[in-house]
């Protein structure tokens, strides 16, 4: 099991909590809670060892521009493929802005 903590610049605090997904085989759950303005804190527990580079690459694309809402994001990953991870992240951010 791998544990990662990533931080990115962000905008105003998120306005709600979001939960998507299940820690099922090849899937993951994402919990979002609002955080003070300016920072996104992302904690990842992943069953896939050696996946840190891939996680950084995937999250960088979404958060590097600093335009996301400020949030605590917790990801519990049961060895999801990059495709599933992208879909779950998109679903979580869509629900956050809904």
């Amino acid at each position, binding site marked *: 099991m791998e544990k990662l903590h990533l931080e990115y610049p962000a905008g105003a605090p998120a306005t709600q909590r979001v939960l998507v997904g299940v820690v099922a085989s090849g899937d993951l759950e994402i919990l979002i809670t609002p955080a003070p303005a300016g920072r996104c804190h992302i904690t990842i*527990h992943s069953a896939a060892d050696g996946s840190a580079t891939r996680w950084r690459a995937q999250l960088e694309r979404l958060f590097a521009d600093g335009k996301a809402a400020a949030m605590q994001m917790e990801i519990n990953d049961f060895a999801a493929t990059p495709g599933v991870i992208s879909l779950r992240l998109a679903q979580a951010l869509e629900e956050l802005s809904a």
Partner: protein
Amino acid sequence: MSHRQDITCLLQGHSFIELSARERAHSLLDAGSSRELAGPFDRQYSPWLSAQGIVAQADDGVVICKGLLDGQPAVVAAIEGGFQGGSLGEVGGAKLACALELAAADNRQSIPTRAVILFETGGVRLQEANLGLAAIAEIHSAIADLSRYQPVVGIIAGTVGCFGGMSIAAGMCSYLIVTREARLGLNGPQVIEQEAGMAEYDSRNRPFIWSLTGGEQRQACGLADALVEDDTPLIRQQLLDFIACGLPAEPRHRRSQHMLQRLLTMDSTTQADAASARQLFQSGARP
């Protein structure tokens, strides 16, 4: 049914099996009445899984929702089959047992809270061993306690099914609803194959496994009360119908004599199959 009708049916249907545990619980309670207790944002993770290098889930795989069923107070406990095979550990087991205990406490204060348990579980979580077993024993006691006041309705929809100690919990429910996709058994197929040998019990032979432990067979043998299509409104209606029936004359867990009598008459010199099992359990006086 033609292929085209099949597809139309599939697209228009509201599958219950395809829902997550949380969606299942919300879909059964009266619209807008459901609120989750000890939910994922309370982050009651299993303290044992991460120590063993296993990724935990924020709700430990058990969803407890309080709300109304047909306008009456109710609690729905749903087990998430996708997380660790729906296994029950210390936290998830305590959530389920506590939900039932609180429902019984409500009844002692004249609040007629009834309970629904959505079983999707392989039983005890092996990584949490005795703590999971203790929790399952507490769930059994709580069902026995609560079912003195209000019906406890169990639903096994599939596709995980209900096994191990939790199959005993299912057997203790006032009413048990199954679908064709459900399975109910004390031991899972692979465990039986390991003990009995592949010649007698091939765990990879799915039609064979379902013919013996599937929902249709279990209902035909009297081990479940209703066989329902995988359709959320139909399952909800069957649930409401059973609750409207009130308590059965005798709780299911006190109706074992019929089954024991049948088992005593069984001829174990010939290999049992689906048809002979049905015949055995359907014969003789019903309780």
